């Protein structure tokens, strides 16, 4: 699987604070990749670096094999929907579509008009008077109609109500199905990601804690509950991700590629949310001490 985004040793510093520190990851091609992590993990910084909105302090990032925003051709290949889905408040929906048509050689006007009609937006309405959900649809339409190879969405649904969120994600999924476009979207709403993503990256303090296809990740993780027991006594093929114990009982979340045969355990499958929470709360694999200064709040 080739990567649409490849980052290695990526650093981004704003004055004295590190927004991203030694981040290395790969986002696969042809997937809808969910980027999950606590606030301050560096998700937004990473996506803005990928879109070429900001330049890295150190390290390298390539998007579709090129430097981000390297030129008009590269810009045309990447669609970016920023946090809060900005739009020009004084410009109408139609004017925004004009903007897209004027500035993008690959503009798909039919797609844009169809999506606007489907979302029930009044083309004459000013963007400033649109609801959050409508504005998000407009921003997504602009990003999709330039027909990018990669679509980057930074927390596109964070500010939306559940219904608008579902409509937005539905529209996104339809577009992905219709046009061959790789998608990476960040969110802290795990339930949304579960619905749309087929690949997942858990980012904590700039480091990848977990990355993989969602189905494979779900298949390789189990929740075990049973009488209290020392996790050290588990077979070597079972990696303990999290553990919690009461006086009599132990609950473990483990990673294994083999069936759990021990009859003492009650074995249950895990959800995406279980996985994300487990990997977010798990102590990292020896993160560099200096990263503590980031003050990450989980």
């Amino acid at each position, binding site marked *: 699987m080739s990567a649409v985004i490849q980052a290695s040793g990526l650093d981004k510093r704003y004055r004295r604070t590190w927004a991203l520190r030694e981040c290395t990851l790969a986002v696969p091609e042809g997937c809808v990749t969910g980027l999950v992590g606590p606030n301050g993990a560096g998700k937004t910084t990473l996506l*803005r670096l990928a*879109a*070429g*909105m*900001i*330049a890295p302090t150190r390290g390298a990032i390539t998007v579709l094999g090129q430097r981000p*925003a390297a*030129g*008009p*051709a590269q*810009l*045309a290949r*990447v*669609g*970016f929907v*920023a*946090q*809060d889905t*900005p*739009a*020009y*408040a*004084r*410009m109408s929906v139609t*004017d925004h579509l*004009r*903007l*897209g048509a*004027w*500035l*993008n*050689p*690959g503009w798909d006007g039919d797609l844009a008009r169809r999506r606007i009609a489907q979302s029930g937006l009044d083309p004459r309405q000013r963007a400033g008077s649109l609801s959050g959900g409508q504005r998000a649809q407009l*921003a997504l339409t*602009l*990003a999709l109609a*330039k027909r990018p190879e990669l679509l980057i969405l930074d927390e596109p649904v964070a500010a939306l109500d559940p219904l608008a969120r579902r409509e937005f994600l539905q529209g996104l999924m339809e577009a992905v199905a219709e046009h061959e476009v790789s998608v990476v979207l960040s969110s802290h709403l795990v339930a949304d990601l579960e619905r749309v993503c087929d690949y997942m990256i858990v980012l904590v303090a700039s480091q990848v804690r977990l990355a993989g296809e969602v189905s494979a990740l779900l298949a390789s993780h189990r929740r075990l509950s049973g009488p209290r027991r020392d996790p050290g006594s588990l077979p070597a093929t079972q990696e303990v991700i999290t553990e919690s114990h009461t006086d009599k009982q132990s609950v473990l979340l483990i990673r294994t590629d083999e069936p759990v045969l021990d009859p003492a355990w009650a074995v249950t499958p895990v959800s995406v949310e279980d996985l994300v929470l487990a990997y977010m709360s798990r102590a990292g694999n020896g993160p560099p001490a200096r990263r503590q200064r980031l003050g990450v709040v989980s």
Partner: protein
Amino acid sequence: MIRLSLLQFRIQAITAAAILAAFAVLLAATGPHLASMYAADGVGSCHGSGCLSPASYFTGSLVRSPYGVLFLLSTGIILLAPAVIGLFWGAPLIARELETGTAALAWNQSVTRTRWLAVKLAIAGLTAMAVTEALSLMQTWWAAPISQAVADGSGAGVAQSRFSQLNFAAHGITPLGYAAFAFALGVSAGALIRRTVPAMAVTLAIFAALQVAMPLWVRPNLASPDRTVIPVTSLGGAGPSQTGPGGDRFTLYALNIPGQPGAWLLSSGPVNAAGQATSTTPAACASVGNTGVSEGAQGNAFGPGQGPAAFVACLAGHGIREAITYQPASRYWRFQATETAIYLVLALALAGYCFRRLSRLS
């Protein structure tokens, strides 16, 4: 990108067009009457030194007519236009995109930021220059009788020479330079500070400071001044003033230089026979003036053989002459071109900064 810039610039363009139209109507409605006043006062039909008197009458009557106020008002608009443009067109150009987050929208279309900025700067910047210069040209046409009266040798009240601070900045080609600079300054401040309102404040502060500093300290030195020494008796309307106990000190300024109409006087003061600056009244002259009061009063307050004229004659008799440093009137366009070039170079440097800043921004 050009079409988008035009679309986004249309409100500003309409505003500018409305202001230009109002300005044009105001001046077109009053200009012919001003010109007829000029003709009625006989300035148009005079020749040579015979023009001084009708020209004086005309410039004097300006003060009593509404045209004096209108002249100052229109001049003020021309001088303020660059600042207003810098504040309302320049400062928000980048800062507002960053503030509202629309930069992420604008810079993720298939157009590089460099091109985005180049088109925006060109359209708004050139419009800024055109609007300001248009204001200036309209007012120059309107004020032609006043300028002519000044050229005829009668500067008074609002009617000042081309080198005066107001006229130099409002006429000629300097408005082009000011507009380009103020606009680029606003854009740069916005790119640096990233917030519109503080950027506006900084733009105003820097532009105002420069507009004060330029005529006071920079403009006089753009060419090394000429120096001349003339008899104190040829100073015309300038009156001496005696100070100190018994009038033992005096000052004497020149207001113009005979034979050099329209020259820009930078400094003037009496020198003694050895050519050294002096302010000591020759003992024999101390009682001749006998003014005791400052300023050049009219001769009728003095007895025969006394008064300012006698005092000046006495000074002349004791070898006192007036030394003047000045810029000849013929250097007007050289000064205009130099100052405009300075502002244009500054504007280009600021624009260059904006491009560099934008490549690292957000």
